């Protein structure tokens, strides 16, 4: 729907589509509130989003633009104000991401002939000059669209911003007839053929040229390459040497290694197979997010995979953590006595409240000290502290026991580890809630924001908002992602930072029989006082990376820039590809880096609502935190919902499609004015595809 004919009255306006905001949207819509949910970006989920590779490049580009953007002073909102009202302006610049650094290790030369039939167009200034908007559109279309061949047609900006969340994957039928014709008429014949024949060489070249942002950037800003540690010469020469190297054809190596080398152009070409999370999280099987997904029936919109193993980094090696009974039984690295001691300790933790005599003496001391007294060998202490409890060495005994118990209770519900990972990335989850909101009549508009709030001078409450089209929309409540607020409103707020690294590698950190493993790697602080790093390694069947590669996410609370925090660990865990001369002489043990991205993200999770100076009916939502689970966001969403609608149930189960009554006319007719209220999914194969069978297994520890 075009943004300029939105209804002018809503119960709740929500700005930002991160997890907390999306859950609030779904919860409000579910109990009958009229919800307008908007986001100034052209993709869902804000800082929780997942991108295709090309989408991520576009996001990076957007970030750079954001850095240089001037604050435009558009005063059009003034005329919408009435007597007795005053404005509260929102910010226009997103400063939540910083210190972004990219490193490309994969060979940037074109692929071998047989891979690409037509010669790959080298990046040209013209292609680089394609309007940002177009590139963004294409890139982000991929973010929300992807996968299904049928839906690969790049939608026009308009339809796309209205596409129902997660709808992109193949459900074209949801668009109203009028919109469809619109979309068709907008598309020029050429575009159409292009859209239909994505696989043709022409399009491939286009895909190549899409990559321009990055490539031009690596040339324009050579200082970002410094970290590649070219030992010889000054920067400019080293860079020249670099490009010279890449122009040389690879000398045909006598022994063709088992694996085909993955080049950068290959990654670009297969870019749609990537779903790269901005925040890297897992779902605790009995955590608040999973419980909410089940309770609300939102789970039917997503598919999950079990995290298949827990690894840890100890004494310079990556090893598997035996955490379930089956793991302990099958472990080859533990002696039988260690098995017994570990099982005994874990069994105790699973109902530690029943045995207060065991730990009460330690209530004032650290969990680590407590572990010392439990006859656990050194490696078992490591496993429990860093990989099972996942607490800092200074954590109190009670905290450690609670964390261990939570871990154990999550075991065995869906498999041998306590965690689930959503297929296609964590960015799916906010979209699932948006979809639920839309199913119950919530209206969505992307690339749309709010310029200012209209406050009633007398009560100080927010009466309405004025959107970026200058339209005044009245509302009783306004929920906003914290990042949209201006400096004035968050004067008293101090933020922490999250350090993130996103890596594409060529093999697993711990190769095993199966290549398809999703692993959580816990890395304890490498120096005392430093942060523990969470590493999540995803395989291609998690639908987050192309076959033959692994997607590795590193996360820790920042002490410096992401690169300062994480690069030392990255170099310990991974190898850089050899230069052309020393071909094949890589450290055979370590996975080879193909591509890496570092950035910092603001961690506003600890901020209390009272730190913001806002009207009482405006609810700020903090962004992602560095924790492994999403409990903070869910707790926040529930708390906000309870303030908004204290008498309503939070996310009651949505009815099953087969329980919904359809009677031809009626509701559908009425709703036509605001665009079709999204048809409840009536047993379409989409629903079938996304529904998860939530089998309750016998709790493992009983």
């Amino acid at each position: 729907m075009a943004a300029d004919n939105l209804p002018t009255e809503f119960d709740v306006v929500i700005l930002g589509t991160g997890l907390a905001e999306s859950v609030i949207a779904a919860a409000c819509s579910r109990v009958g509130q009229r919800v307008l949910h908007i986001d100034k970006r052209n993709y869902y989920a804000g800082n929780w989003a997942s991108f295709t590779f090309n989408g991520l490049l576009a996001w990076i580009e957007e970030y750079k633009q954001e850095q240089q953007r001037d604050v435009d002073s558009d005063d059009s909102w003034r005329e919408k104000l009435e007597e007795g009202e005053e404005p509260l302006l929102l910010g226009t610049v997103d400063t939540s991401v910083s210190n972004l650094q990219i490193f490309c290790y994969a060979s940037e030369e074109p692929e071998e002939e047989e891979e690409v039939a037509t010669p790959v167009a080298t990046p040209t200034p013209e292609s680089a000059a394609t309007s940002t908007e177009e590139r963004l559109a294409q890139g982000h279309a991929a973010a929300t669209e992807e996968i299904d061949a049928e839906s690969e047609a790049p939608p026009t900006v308009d339809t796309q911003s209205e596409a129902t969340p997660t709808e992109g994957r193949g459900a074209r039928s949801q668009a109203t007839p009028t919109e469809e014709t619109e979309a068709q008429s907008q598309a020029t014949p050429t575009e159409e053929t292009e859209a239909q024949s994505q696989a043709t060489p022409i399009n491939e070249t286009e895909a190549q040229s899409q990559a321009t942002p990055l490539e031009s950037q690596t040339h324009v800003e050579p200082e970002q390459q410094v970290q590649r540690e070219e030992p010889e010469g000054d920067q400019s020469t080293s860079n020249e040497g670099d490009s010279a190297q890449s122009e040389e054809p690879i000398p045909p190596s006598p022994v063709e290694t088992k694996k085909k080398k993955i080049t950068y152009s290959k990654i670009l070409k297969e870019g749609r197979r990537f779903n790269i999370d901005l925040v890297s999280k897992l779902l605790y099987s009995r955590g608040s997010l999973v419980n909410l997904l089940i309770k609300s029936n939102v789970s039917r919109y997503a598919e999950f995979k079990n995290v298949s193993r827990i690894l840890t980094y100890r004494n310079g090696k990556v090893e598997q953590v035996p955490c379930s009974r089956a793991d302990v039984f099958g472990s080859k690295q533990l002696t039988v006595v260690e098995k017994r001691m570990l099982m005994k300790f874990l069994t105790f933790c699973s109902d530690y409240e029943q045995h207060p005599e065991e730990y009460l003496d330690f209530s004032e001391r650290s969990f680590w000290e407590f572990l010392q007294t439990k006859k656990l060998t050194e490696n078992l202490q490591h496993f429990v502290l860093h990989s099972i409890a996942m607490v800092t060495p200074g954590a109190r005994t009670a905290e450690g026991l609670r964390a261990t118990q939570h871990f154990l209770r999550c075991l065995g519900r869906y498999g041998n580890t306590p965690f689930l990972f959503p297929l296609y990335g964590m960015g799916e989850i906010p979209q699932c809630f948006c979809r639920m909101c839309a199913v119950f009549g919530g209206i969505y508009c992307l690339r749309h924001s709010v310029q200012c709030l209209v406050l009633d001078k007398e009560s100080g409450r927010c009466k309405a908002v004025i959107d970026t089209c200058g339209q005044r929309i009245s509302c009783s409540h306004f929920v906003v992602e914290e990042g949209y607020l201006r400096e004035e409103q968050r004067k008293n707020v101090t933020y922490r930072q999250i350090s993130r690294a996103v890596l594409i590698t060529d093999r697993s950190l711990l190769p095993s029989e199966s290549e398809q493993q999703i692993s959580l790697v816990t890395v304890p602080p490498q120096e005392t006082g430093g942060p523990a790093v969470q590493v999540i390694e995803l395989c291609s069947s998690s639908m987050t990376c192309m076959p033959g590669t692994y997607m590795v996410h590193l996360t820790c609370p920042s002490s410096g820039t992401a690169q300062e925090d994480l690069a030392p660990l990255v170099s310990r865990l991974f190898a850089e590809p050899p230069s052309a001369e020393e071909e094949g002489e890589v450290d055979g043990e370590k996975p080879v880096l193909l591509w890496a991205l570092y950035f910092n993200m603001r961690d506003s999770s600890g901020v209390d609502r009272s730190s913001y100076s806002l009207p009482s009916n405006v609810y700020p939502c903090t962004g992602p935190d560095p924790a492994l689970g999403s409990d903070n966001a869910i707790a926040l969403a529930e708390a906000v919902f309870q303030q908004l609608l204290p008498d309503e149930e939070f996310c009651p189960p949505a009815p099953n499609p087969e329980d919904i009554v359809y009677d031809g006319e009626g509701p559908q007719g009425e709703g036509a004015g605001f665009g079709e209220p999204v048809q409840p999914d009536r047993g379409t194969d989409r629903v079938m595809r996304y529904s998860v069978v939530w089998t309750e297994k016998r709790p493992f520890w009983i």
Partner: protein
Amino acid sequence: MHGRVKLKSTAQQEEEKKKEREKKLKVYKAARDACFSKRKEGTMDVEALQLTQQLLSSNPDFATLWNYRREILLHQETVRAEEEVQKVYEEELSFLEGCLKVNPKSYGSWHHRGWVSSRIPGPTGAESWACATAAWRWTTETELQFTDRLIGSNFSNYSSWHYRSTLLPLLHPQAHERDPPSPSTHSHSVCEEQLLKEYELVQNAFFTDPNDQSAWFYYRWLLGRAEREEMISCVYVSREGERLIVAFSRPVNALSVGLLLVVDGQPLNVDWRSAHPRFRHSPVWICELPPGTISDSSNEHNLTVHWTQRHIHRDCALYTGRSESWCRDSATDQELFRSDLSVEKTSVLQSELQSCTQLLELEPQNKWCVLTIVLLMRALDPLGYERETLAHFETLKDVDSMRSSYYSDLCSKFMIENTILKMEYAEVRVFSLSGKKLTTLCHLDQLLLVTHINISSNQLQTLPPQFAMLQCLEVLEADDNVIESLYGLYHLPRLEEVSLKNNQISRISDLKPLTTCPKLTRLDLRGNPVTQTANLQSELAQLLPSVTDLLL
């Protein structure tokens, strides 16, 4: 109002669910009826196979259908070519794998799987022998890996452990067996190399969860249960009463095994009776020789007992001037009791004992672990470990009080075994078991030659019928027990003295078995409730006229 979703009422939903269930039930019933009628008609076609498959995958506990399926498969074997049969059975295995994934502990599915793997064409036919053996081996190995997988994901599964125990002897038979392994040769022992691997596996299981019985049961199977060889362990002959007694290593029915007695080269027709009329199977059998056969002590006799079925025999020479004679195994302790466990390598047992002791340190309360330690100690050195064994039994009674009587009986058994071992070394016929907290008597067949037995100061409640095997017994001391009945004092031809002080004999009728012991002259009944009976003296004089020395 826009965007509101209309819902069916709960009643409507219930109704629909009910209909859904009814529909499913109808389909199921129809298929079941079709199956039954097909079976009635004797149809053994592929369609029936499919029908049963449908039904069984939704309900694997339908034993009749599994049976029908086996009938069909057996029929298919006769009408199809061998390769096809192989294929059919392979499909069967993958079908079963599906069933077991849904319901990993279904007995029906496991049984059928075992049956199928035994039916898979084995080594038959000279020309394709090697090929078939390879195929058979491959299937069996796949089956073993299948149990590996199931045990790996959750080892609390008796069925998969048990299935393993049926596969291992086939795949890794003990080396000395010359026959090629095949499903038909049922060997129960496993080669040592594989055995060690299994010990490791099962140790991992019981160290991981020592309270899980399934692993301990499998462990017990691995340690084995030796079956003693059947043989004649002793032949005893006495001039007095002209009796001959034969003891076997295991209870047999002498009337049906074809016993033949040859005296001085002449086969003799005799009537065999067991030590007590209650036993149809007994390790001890007695016969009276025709009067005059061996009564003259100036003659020397050679007696031979032939066990014709087994082609074994035992000789016994009765020399001039001797009133009795016997011939028996110079039985060492090894053969007598140690063979409870079949593992022969002491080093293996020793290391098993070590790991169990290690586990016990961590889990002092674990009964499975303690019991296994006791068994291992028995197998290694029953006398040397006697003190530890007794202590472990105390622990067992403590931690598993529900079974304390079982442990007492088991402990009694071991104590008696130990005493017998000591007696064997000493070559004596006087036997004392006093003060050993015995609750039961066993191994009495080993005491055939004992003349004096002291079982005082125990917790015995009865002298069981087996006691009648002590055919040479002259003096019985059984003071300070809680004996109520004397069934076992039956036809003991040489019994002269019985002391039953401080027991629980309360009725005169309880003494009735003693009437069958002709030589009984001294009986001590002091401290028994029966002494309160009026006219006891006269009643006893009537009941037991031979008793001259009666203490009341």
